C-alpha cells in the first residue's frame, strides 16, 4: 500500500513536468526551468505552511492548556507563546522568501 502511494505521488509530481516537456520541446530549457520553479515554490510553500500549522497548533494548544491550569500566569504564558509562535512562523517565512525569489527573480 505505501508503495502504491509513493508511486502515485511520484506520478503526480512528474505529470506537469512531462506535460511541459512535450509542449516546450521547441521552447528550450528556460521555460522548463521556470515551470519547475513555479512547481517548487507551490509545493514547498504548501509543505511549509502545513507543517507550521501542526507546530503552531501544538504550541498554542499547550499554551491554552497551561493557561487553563494556571490562570494567574496568563500574561507570562501569553508572551512566551507569542515568542514561540514567531520562531516557528519565521521558518515558514524563510520558505516564503525563497518562493518569492523563485517566482519573481529572473535567474
Amino acid at each position, binding site marked *: 500500500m505505501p508503495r502504491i502511494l509513493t508511486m502515485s505521488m511520484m506520478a503526480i509530481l512528474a505529470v506537469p513536468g512531462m506535460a511541459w516537456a512535450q509542449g516546450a520541446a521547441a521552447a528550450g530549457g528556460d521555460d522548463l526551468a521556470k515551470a519547475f520553479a513555479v512547481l517548487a515554490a507551490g509545493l514547498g510553500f504548501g509543505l511549509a505552511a502545513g507543517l507550521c500549522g501542526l507546530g503552531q497548533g501544538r504550541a498554542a494548544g499547550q499554551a491554552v492548556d497551561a493557561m487553563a491550569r494556571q490562570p494567574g500566569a496568563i500574561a507570562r504564558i501569553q*508572551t512566551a507563546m*507569542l*515568542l514561540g509562535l*514567531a520562531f516557528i*512562523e*519565521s521558518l*515558514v*517565512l*524563510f520558505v*516564503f*522568501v525563497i518562493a*518569492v525569489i523563485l517566482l*519573481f527573480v529572473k535567474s
Partner: protein
Amino acid sequence: MELIEHPPILHIAAIPDHILYTWIAMAILITVAFVASRRVQLVPTGSQNFMEIVLEQFVKELDETIGHDGRRYLPLIATLGLFILVSNLMGLVPGLVAPTANLNTTAACALIVFVTYHVIGVRKQGFIPYLKHFAGPVPTVLKPLMFVIEIISHCARPLSLSLRLFGNMMAGHILLAIFFFMMGFDGMLGWALRGSVAGLVIGAPAALIMVVFVVGFLFPLKILVAFIQTFIFCKLAMLYIAAAVEEAEHH
C-alpha cells in the same frame, strides 16, 4: 506583481518607494511627538496622555525583560517599535506602501539591534571576557566547537529578525493585493458588471463574500499581525540586550 498591483498614490521618480514612505512614517512620528511634547504638563491631557500610555507599555516590557537597568534602553527600543508599528499600519491603507515590506528597511533595523547589543555587551564586561562568553560553560575540549556554533547563532539573529518582519509584511501585502484584484473590476465584480447570466449568478455573490471576508476577517487579522510583529521585534531586541547585560552580572 505589477499585473495585480496598483502603483502607490505618491510616487517620485528616482526615489525608491520604501524610502519615500519611510520619510512619511518619520513625518507622522515627528509630528505626533512634537504635538505631544509641546506643552508638557504634570497632569497629561490629549496627545501627551496618549503618548505617555504608549511609552508606558515599552517601559513595562523593559522592566520585565531587562530588569532594573532596562530603562536606559527605552529610546532605542521605543524608537524602533514606534517606527515599525507606524510602518506596518501604513501598509494596510490602500494606496500606501509599508516600508517594512522591503528587506532593506527591516535589515537596517535588525543591524542596529545587532550592533547595539554587542556594543553594550563589550562595554559592560570588556572585549576579552565578552568573547569568552561565547564559549559557554562546557569542558575545555568542547570550547572551540561551542565558540563557532555560538558565532553562527549570533549571525543568524539579525537574519531571522529582519526576514521575519519582512516576510510577514510582504506576505500580507501580496495576500491583500491578490484579494483586491480578485474581487475588483478585473475580477469577480467586473465579471458581474459585464452582464452575462453566469457573471451575475456566480460573480456577484462571490464578490460580496470576498468583501465580507476581507473587511471582516483579513483586515482585523492584519492589524493584529502588525501589532504582534512590532511586539516580537521589540521583545527580541530586549532579550538580546538582556542576555548581553546579564552575563556581566553573573561573573
